[in-house]
């Protein structure tokens, strides 16, 4: 957290005007949503399914090293597409307007151990509503890490670079546990809560199906290629987990991203809500292919402003949003993937150690600091 509130120069009126300008950007996209967008998501879904089919087909012969390599690479990409550009965005309701029951937030299920409905609650509802509010948004460190100076240090945090690495490798399991709020619910009394038990059972079912598919059925189908196929699916899951963890770390962890205190969102206006999303998110710069493979979460700022706009429109929205950042003299945190990943990791390592009591950033205190 910076000592100085980077939005302090804005008047309440300006913030509301900013909100209106963002609403106008949103309305423009909604008014022009149409056939091209629908064709886009259908094409991506179809491409993903074909890629997965072909890759799994090739892996039937994974005993031959070239087949193993090609199949594993294909399956990794297919799983990344499924989670990022397709699953994440459909589950946000970005494509609900098409009224196609097969591509709808209420029916979609993804290649992930967290059941779609549980993830929708923790992600769409908790994270997107309370973005970067300490104590309200569990995405801040996923409950296992300290990612802001304001969070209380505990010796447990010394190990957080390690936790973060393990979490990255098994990210989908981390997310499932996180959606279950496992840490909070493992206490004896909470464990017996029927609602929690039902959700835990749903996760168990999903894990069983996913594991059975990846580590039993497909290897068995491969016959003599049993072990290579097993290794291939494990690798593909690992690649997908490392990739999505990296992308997601870049969304809110890099230096320059703001966090907010619980009381700061009391009575928040629409303009203030927008402003919090702007200051609480960070982008990744790069090529079209990079945007696609991140599920357009490289446009995290735009995604947080308009989580339900079709992902293929974020690139054009980003130009207008960035202009607003400039107009209102706000910092648009962005950078290439390696830089942002490094920045996020550096923060994780730095905050594993205790820091001095943070400086408070209310305007009054800021003046005191300046005066001092």
């Amino acid at each position, binding site marked *: 957290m910076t000592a100085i509130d980077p939005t302090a120069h804005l008047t309440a009126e300006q913030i509301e005007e900013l909100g209106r300008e963002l*609403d106008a950007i949103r*309305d423009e996209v*909604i008014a022009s*949503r*149409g*056939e*091209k*967008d*629908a*064709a886009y998501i259908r094409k991506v879904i*179809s491409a993903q*399914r*074909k890629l997965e*089919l072909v890759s799994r087909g090739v892996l039937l012969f994974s005993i031959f090293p070239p087949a193993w390599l090609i199949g594993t690479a294909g399956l990794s990409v297919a799983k990344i597409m499924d989670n990022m550009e397709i699953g994440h965005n459909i*589950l*946000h*309701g970005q494509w*609900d*307007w*098409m*009224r*196609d*029951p*097969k591509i*709808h*937030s*209420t029916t979609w*299920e*993804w*290649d*992930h151990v967290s059941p779609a409905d549980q993830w*929708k*609650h923790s992600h*769409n*509802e908790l994270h*997107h*509503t309370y973005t970067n509010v300490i104590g309200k948004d569990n995405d801040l460190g996923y409950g296992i890490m300290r990612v802001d100076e304001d969070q209380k240090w505990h010796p447990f945090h010394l190990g957080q670079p390690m936790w973060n690495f393990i979490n990255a490798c098994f990210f989908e399991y981390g997310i499932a546990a996180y959606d279950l709020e496992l840490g909070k619910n493992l206490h004896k009394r909470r464990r017996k809560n029927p609602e929690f038990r039902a959700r835990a059972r749903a996760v168990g079912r*999903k894990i069983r*199906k*996913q594991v*059975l*598919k990846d580590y039993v*059925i*497909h290897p068995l*189908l491969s016959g003599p290629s049993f072990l290579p196929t097993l290794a291939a699916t494990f690798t593909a899951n690992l690649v997908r987990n490392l990739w999505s963890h990296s992308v997601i770390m870049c969304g809110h962890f890099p230096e320059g991203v703001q966090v907010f205190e619980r009381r700061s969102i009391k009575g928040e206006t629409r303009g203030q*809500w927008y402003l919090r999303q702007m200051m609480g998110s960070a982008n990744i710069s790069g090529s079209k292919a990079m945007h696609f493979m991140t599920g357009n979460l490289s446009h995290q700022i735009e995604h947080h402003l308009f*989580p*339900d706009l079709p992902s293929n429109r974020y690139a054009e929205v980003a130009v207008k949003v960035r202009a607003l950042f400039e107009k209102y003299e706000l910092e648009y945190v962005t950078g290439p993937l390696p830089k942002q990943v490094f920045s996020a990791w550096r923060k994780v390592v730095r905050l594993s150690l205790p820091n001095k009591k943070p400086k408070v950033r209310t305007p009054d205190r800021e003046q005191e600091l300046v005066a001092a």
Partner: protein
Amino acid sequence: MTSVALRSRAWKLLEMVTTPLVPSDYLDLVSPLRAGADLRGRIEAVRPETGDAATIVIRPGRGWRGHTAGQYVRVGVDVDGVRLWRAYSLTSPTDRRDGRITITVKAIPDGKVSNHLVRRATPGTLIQLDQATGDFVLPEAKPAKVLYLTAGSGITPVMGMLRDTDFDDVVMVHSAPRPHDVIFRDDLHALVADKKLRLTELHTDTDGMLDIARLGDLVPDWAERETWACGPAGLLDAAEEHWTEHGVRERLHTERFRPTVVATGDGGEVTFSTTGTTVDADGATPLLDVGEEAGVLMPSGCRMGICFGCVTPLKAGAVRDLRTGEITEAEPGVLIQTCVSAAAGPCDIER
């Protein structure tokens, strides 16, 4: 093990292979019209009939169970990326050798689907289908005398009947604004030339509207005829009254195309149909609040339109998006976000 049991086991195994998707998701990529798939059709041709009407030739999926002359089919068409469902009469005979079906569509002003089908639909496009349905059909026992009373696109179900079943004595009274507005005019005249049909063609632009009280002038024995009438509501209302007055109401069969138009305004009576709760709502209160106030257990989430945790089917009526002012009318498959939608007239929420 029986073959059915064997197949269901094989299917279960296949589901384990494709989880979290289902095998159909992959099969649809290569064979969307196969048996067992959701019912779809492929548009094979679009043939203009008049300036604003066209016949759409559709190859239905293997699951199509056929139709009875006079029935209609609901089709789901993607217009500007949005799937919209409409019902159209089938105009093909029931025994078409190539197995294709046709619907004939008249583009109505502001009609999203009808204009799309008539002017923009292209061969090769997949559409969604329901099985044929409707009671506007011929009886199994052939009536001795038949009258078809039609106007405008009301000709379409009757054309399906004419193409399907020959009767000894058939009279048709058909109204359309001008000669070139008569859909199937050539087909009708060919039937007349073959002496299979006696036709009275009324052109309302020059002849004025048909006065049902004077139907006897055109068809003296109308009351003895088994009659099928299809056209605008005004014509059907007048016909029903006329047939009732003369005590022959049971001989009249009618088909109404347009459902009642949803009137949109500010607020209205909201029905939560699953729980059977009805309350009055204003045009500014989110339906989520309206439901909760009335004690209905509503799914909910962020309450600001971003989490999609509250989406609920809108069964009837219309709602207004409180953020954009946009009106959404009920159609099959329409789900609304109750936290940012208010009643824009009477509506029915599935809760």
